[in-house]
């Protein structure tokens, strides 16, 4: 087990989802994972892949080269960043001529990609480096009676040739992590489907329809919350839930929690410490249920 990681924040988390960063740092500290800050970083490259594959390769390789100087493996909270850094690391390691081409660009900034660091998304780190047993052992207030649903997000596991820790067609990692907190993770229709976030700005109509589909399937199984591990999925559901309710004249009222927020509650951290106040769809009902449940036990 490795317990020291270079944290790569990416752009979306510090821009719009500080609650994810705050709760992740708190939970990882409790699990004994030491985080070292990147000395500098730039966009991972993913947003530029559609318009310029070469730009994506250069930006990702630049980040990897910066991490190599620190001699530490990378942890990301964003699946897009993790997927991109993993993929480019493999592509450049497998193809010497591509590596040479990209390194000629990095040289302009005095950098060189050597291919010596590994990147993990927080989900992979929790599964492989911490382990389900240790997470279970960290729980002091089991979330018994809480029924939630999970949304992995596409880039956590796709395309599958770059990931080997879970099956994208039937992912289990997040489910088992949720169950480790004592909560029940419900199955629902089309669980592995896209949230729609990448279509925002290109076609908001399609993006909202995709998110609505997911929310309605989650509501059908009476999940009390949806658990995400991606800043974009979180924005898509949490920020847009009200808009979706208005657009389609429906009511969901499903709070969207980052997995570290859920785990943090089970570890005994307070909703304030876990930045629950930042959520657009408030999670009062859950908090109330958990506090009442705890009182009953006492």
């Amino acid at each position, binding site marked *: 087990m490795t317990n020291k990681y270079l944290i790569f*924040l990416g*752009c*979306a988390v*510090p*821009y719009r989802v*500080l609650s994810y*960063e*705050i709760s992740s*740092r708190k939970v990882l500290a409790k699990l004994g994972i030491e985080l070292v*800050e*990147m*000395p*500098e*970083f*730039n*966009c991972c490259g993913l*947003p*530029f*892949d*559609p*318009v*310029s*594959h*070469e*730009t994506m390769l*250069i*930006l990702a390789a*630049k980040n990897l080269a910066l991490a190599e100087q620190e001699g530490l493996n990378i942890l990301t909270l964003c699946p897009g960043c993790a997927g991109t850094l993993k993929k480019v690391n493999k592509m450049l390691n497998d193809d010497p001529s*591509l590596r040479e081409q990209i390194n000629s*660009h*990095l040289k*302009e*900034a005095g*950098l060189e990609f050597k291919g010596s660091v590994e990147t993990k998304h927080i989900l992979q780190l929790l599964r492989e480096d911490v382990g389900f047993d240790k997470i279970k052992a960290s729980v002091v207030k089991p979330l018994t009676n809480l029924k939630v649903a999970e949304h992995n997000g*596409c*880039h956590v596991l*796709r*395309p*599958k040739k770059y990931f080997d820790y879970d099956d*994208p*067609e039937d992912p289990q990692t997040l489910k088992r992590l949720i169950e480790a907190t004592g909560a029940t993770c419900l199955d629902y229709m089309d669980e592995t*489907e*896209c949230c*729609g*976030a*990448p*279509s925002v*700005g*290109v*076609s*908001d*109509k*399609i993006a909202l*329809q*995709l998110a609505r589909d997911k929310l309605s399937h989650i509501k059908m199984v009476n999940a009390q919350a949806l658990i995400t591990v991606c800043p974009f999925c979180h924005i898509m559901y949490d920020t847009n839930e009200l808009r979706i309710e208005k657009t389609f004249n429906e009511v969901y009222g499903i709070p969207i929690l980052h997995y570290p927020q859920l785990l943090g509650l089970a570890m005994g951290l307070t909703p304030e410490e876990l*930045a629950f106040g930042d959520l657009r769809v408030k999670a009062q009902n859950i908090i109330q249920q958990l506090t009442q449940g705890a009182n009953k036990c006492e």
Partner: protein
Amino acid sequence: MSEVTEKSAQKGKEQPIKASEFDSTFKYELQKISGSENILKCFQCGTCTSDCPVARYSDSYRPRTLIHMAQLGLRDRVLNSDTLWLCAACFTCTDRCPQGVEVASVIRVFRNLAAEKNCIPQVFMDQAQSLLETGYAYKIPELRINKRESLGLPPLPKGNPENVKKTLKGVKFFQNIQKPEGEKLSDQ
């Protein structure tokens, strides 16, 4: 290009295809580009389209059709098609294609070729501008960066846009993007 609507996505489709539009070299060009090497392996089974979440809600986005058009050599129709930009890059098609075509990567190659002609949605231009100015894909407001300290978070590492620009020297896409002052990245 503004937001893609069903109307804009249908543009041109009603026009009959002329024999002069077929460019039989297009598919061989695609075979040489990283990401679309396997385009000729597509046998039109339609797994990509039937599993595509976007295709479910769009009357126009059909990955199988785009690949078929490219195989036939309809270069301009493919590259000028608004529907290209609807792909959400969820990679379901890539994972499920029985022929290993890497459909999402083929769509990405089409987009890259379209972008060389500057035919791209505004959202990508905004991100490119932000990258050149800050090193990040978004212009993160100062207020939010400064707020980190009061929230007990470490300072945000610098984006170092100067170094980003240095490494992007010679990249076609950025040569085509004008900076607000009117100077080009390639001029530096």
